[in-house]
């Protein structure tokens, strides 16, 4: 499991990335991160929602109540244009960061 510090800095990036393709609700996001990271990254309601609400306050994402047929009413989060810009910037930073690490450590991915 990753250290908290690292996790916190990157989880916003993860959530933005997950919301890029389609709007998702909180539990969906938690499950996706868990399954895609194969259990390395885990969330609980206590860690997920402060993050979502913070991002919403920054106007990166927006939550809407959606009722789908044969489903319960859920709050779906979607990227805002600001959120999209933030995602691009974070991707860029991440690439630069990874490249810098690589240059220093000489680690090469196949």
């Amino acid at each position, binding site marked *: 499991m990753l250290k908290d510090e690292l996790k916190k800095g990157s989880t916003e990036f993860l959530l933005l990335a997950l919301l890029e393709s389609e709007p998702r609700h909180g539990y969906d996001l938690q499950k996706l991160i868990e399954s895609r990271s194969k259990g390395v990254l885990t969330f609980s309601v206590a860690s997920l929602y402060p993050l979502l609400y*913070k991002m919403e306050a920054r106007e990166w994402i927006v939550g809407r109540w959606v009722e789908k047929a044969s489903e319960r009413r859920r*709050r779906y989060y979607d990227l805002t244009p600001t959120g999209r810009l933030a995602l691009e910037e974070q991707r860029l930073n991440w690439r630069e960061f990874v490249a810098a690490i690589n240059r220093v450590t000489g680690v090469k991915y196949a």
Partner: protein
Amino acid sequence: MPEQFNWRDAVRSRVSTFGLHPSAEADVVEEVTEHLESQYLELVPRIGADAARAQLLAELNDREFDETAPLLQKREHIPPTRVLGASSFWRDVRYSFRSFRRTPATLFAGATALALGIGLTTLMFSVIYGLLLRGLPYQRSENIATIFRADPQDRGQEDLVPFSDFVRYKSTQRTFAALGGYASATVNVSGGQDAERARVARVTAGFLDVTGVQPIVGRIFGVDDNIVGAPATAVLSFAMWRDRYQLDSTVVGQSINLNGRPFTIIGVMPERFEFPQRERMWVSLQLDPAQFSAGQGLGLTLVGKIRTGISFETANHDLASISKQLAKENADTAAVRDFARPYVRAMVPTRVYALLYAMFAAVLLVLMVSCANVANLLLDRISNRSRENAIRVALGASRGAIFRQTLIESGVVAAYASILGVILAQGGIVAFNRWAADIRADLPFWMDVRLHVPVMLFVIAIATVASLLAGIVPAVLSSRVDPGASLKLGAHVSSTRRVARIGNAFVVLEIALSSALLLTAGFVTTSIVRINDLNPRFRTQDIFTARVTALTKDSAINKTRFEAIESALANTPGIGGVYLGNGIPGTGWSGTRVAIEGRTYDKPRNRPSSRWLAVTPGFFSTFDVAVTRGRAITSADREGTLRVAVVSETFVQRHFPREDPVGKRIRLGDDAVAEWATIVGVVPTMFADSPDGNWPTEVITALWQERQFNNVAIALRGPEESVSLVALRKVLARVAPDVPVSDAATMPELLSRATWPNRVFGGMFVIFAIVALLLAAIGLYAIVSISVGRRTREMGVRLALGATHANVVGIICREGMKQSTIGIAIGFALGAALTQLGRAALFEVKPGDPTVIIAVACVLAATSLVASLMPALAATRVDPARALRAD
């Protein structure tokens, strides 16, 4: 199926400490609950219910979750309606106007009902203010006092203060800045042009200073003017200056003749100055104080202005210590007390005070009825709007905002109503003043009934109180709306029912108040009818009266003159009866003390008093008065023959209960050496003085046996065209062209002057009661209509199940009549109390008169029946099929 767990409660209790806005809290509870429920469903099959629940609860209670609180507070902070903000206040006012534009009928009905209440209250207050509260139109008029003498041994009857005592007061007192006395008289004015009769006040120095009003020309009286032997001086009123001297500025120094004696004019008072009572002129009173011992001298009414900062109590204390000193010098006045009272309070009879305040209480009741009406209208509105208010609360409006919104609506109604009410009051004031001018009674000169500034402030105050009274209950009810319950289907019915219960209570209140008023009005109306039916026991129709005054001081010459006038009138065709006397029966009797031969009296004042007229034989034929025993006064009863008197039956009952009065002798007046008069006949007791109270004893003597002749009252009987002022002047022009004629009036006019307070104020009472009854009937009608609307479905079912129309009408009317009966019962108890207050307006009616109570109850029952019958009949037109489909 995994074991159920109530995640919602868990989340809610976790979040409840965050202090979020309800809508933000609801959102987060729903979102997190949904999350946890979904996760729980997936976890239970893998790790079991207990472990799953423990894990998720641990996660939920993680301190990290607290970080959501500040974020949610920020995110969901939609500011609620600010209750005290100015901008939202105007928004609410605009909203009220908009919503009233959609339902103008409510605004119109409410404002009209309240305007009636406000209008009547304002009218009544402006009368009270103009007559009683405003005071005299002079500087520091609240300090102006009048001083009366009261004798506790003589039933506290008010008396004048003798000149000698006034002189002592004036020199000894320390509490009055100005003190003066006056005695009014009516004199013949001549010199210059026409002779005229004028009201003149003989005054001491200091009298005019009490008012602080300065003359516009010349000066007012100084101490020197009161010295015997000084030139006699006079001050003119503006009216006298205008009418006799055409506003001539050189009038000062000119001479004017009063009763043949010359007076030098020294000044002119400003326009409308008529203190103390419609005076045309003021002359200096010249009496020598040295001639009178304590308790002697001309009786004066004293007026004074108390020094600034000194209370009436202190002033009276000062007077009392002087009185004590005086009592030591004169045993006869040992018991009397002189006391100062505020001028207006002393001059307006207590019964008028009581009457005006009783009427004010009555209009306040009308105002309350109209407030209850507005409250009911607002209740109906909020019950129709409970859904709207629920949505507003759900959307974030605070309850305070809803509360205020309803109060503002009642304020808007009150604002319209006060404008309308002031217009109504102004109309009433115009009518009141016109009537006051018509009545030609001696109304107080300071009475000024207008919309004065304090009256307008009063309007604002009562409009505010009325809007609070009318709005408070609807406002509380509207803010108690429960969004959860109200938004459910059919919830409308239950909230309407609660509102209707309170509405019913208002209607009971309205009926109670108007019953109380109507009961009082019933008594008052009955007494008006009795007054109009009053049998004075003498003829009043086709009788014209006037007063003529002799010009000389010589009674012998005057007597010859009057005899010539009598015979000239008697010989004029068209005049059926001629009466001359010292007064007119009814309100024009003189008063005198009577001594009966053979009875002893310790003091002159212990002799009984009686009404007295000195008449010509024409009295009996002109007024159709017939003796029941003995004989009337005839033309044989002249000077030099046996002095005779005729007494009334009341006089006989009081003084000769078991004796034959004919042949007994009495002596009139204070003079102990006056000639005895022998009683020769008895007449029925006639109406004298005022319509209420017991009719006093009466003595009639022969005019031509009197010694003093200054002026006589004349009564002429005949058709209107033959007996009038014109006809009288025509005859006088032949026999006595220079005698002034005054006080011309017909007999019915004279009598109506005596009874006007009862008729006018009584009439106003009746108007108040009718307005209140109408308002209550409308209120009852509205509440029954609302109830019928609510029960449309029920009535439909009843009709469908075979109820007849009569059954339906019966059910609805019973409901209306139930409220009426409760209301009437409460109202009659209240009315009994109110009638005690309004007793002053009652005449020959006892407050408990059963015929009045029954009549009023019938009117009330009939009105209530009509008010509930109308909506009940509407209910029978319900089509069962449609009613069942409704809602």
